[in-house]
């Protein structure tokens, strides 16, 4: 069964460094998302992406964050200058089309900022 994949599974970085988290959505899906979950807290929406542009972003998704679909398969989340509070599990999700479709989540990347 097709699944969303994410790399790396765990990323450790120093505060102020740039990180790129990578996702490969399910191949025929058209809508892509990033969510994050700080340890012990809710899963929070960051950004949605459709037709090569951001369709919605939350207030968490400030100028330090950016997303890109550099080719036909990858979907990346970049954090330009990481802060301690960026430490969280980051989940990528995708869905086929239509707001009534299931969002399928990847296994997540655990980001630790030291």
């Amino acid at each position: 069964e097709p699944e969303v994949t994410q790399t790396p599974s765990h990323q450790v970085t120093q505060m102020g460094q740039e990180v790129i988290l990578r996702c490969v959505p399910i191949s025929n899906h058209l809508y892509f998302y990033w969510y994050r979950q700080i340890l012990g807290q809710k899963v929070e929406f960051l950004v949605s992406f459709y037709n090569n542009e951001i369709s919605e972003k939350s207030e968490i998704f400030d100028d330090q964050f950016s997303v890109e679909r550099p080719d036909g398969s990858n979907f990346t989340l970049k954090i330009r200058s990481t802060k301690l509070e960026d430490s969280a599990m980051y989940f990528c999700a995708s869905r086929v089309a239509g707001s009534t479709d299931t969002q399928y989540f990847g296994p997540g990347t655990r980001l630790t900022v030291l």
Partner: protein
Amino acid sequence: SQQGEEDPQALSIQEGENATMNCSYKTSINNLQWYRQNSGRGLVHLILIRSNEREKHSGRLRVTLDTSKKSSSLLITASRAADTASYFCATDPLDSKLTFGKGITLSVRP
């Protein structure tokens, strides 16, 4: 309560018993989804129920949706130790981003 708020926060049952988890939400929705998360792992989609549906089954799972009360319940029948996990409801309003609750920690004792 906030959108997608589950209760109870924690539930401990014996293997073989049924587990019932509830979710309440505030705004209109297109659908409501339940996910499971094993400790420190990814979110596994369990079931989606659309706003025009009242009940849905998938294996040992039964989900109900009452849009007049803005609530949903997830029933796991004949629970197993492997069902031990956190369970989240997520609402999908018209703009399609999911809003998650804080989750319910289910412990199934062998």
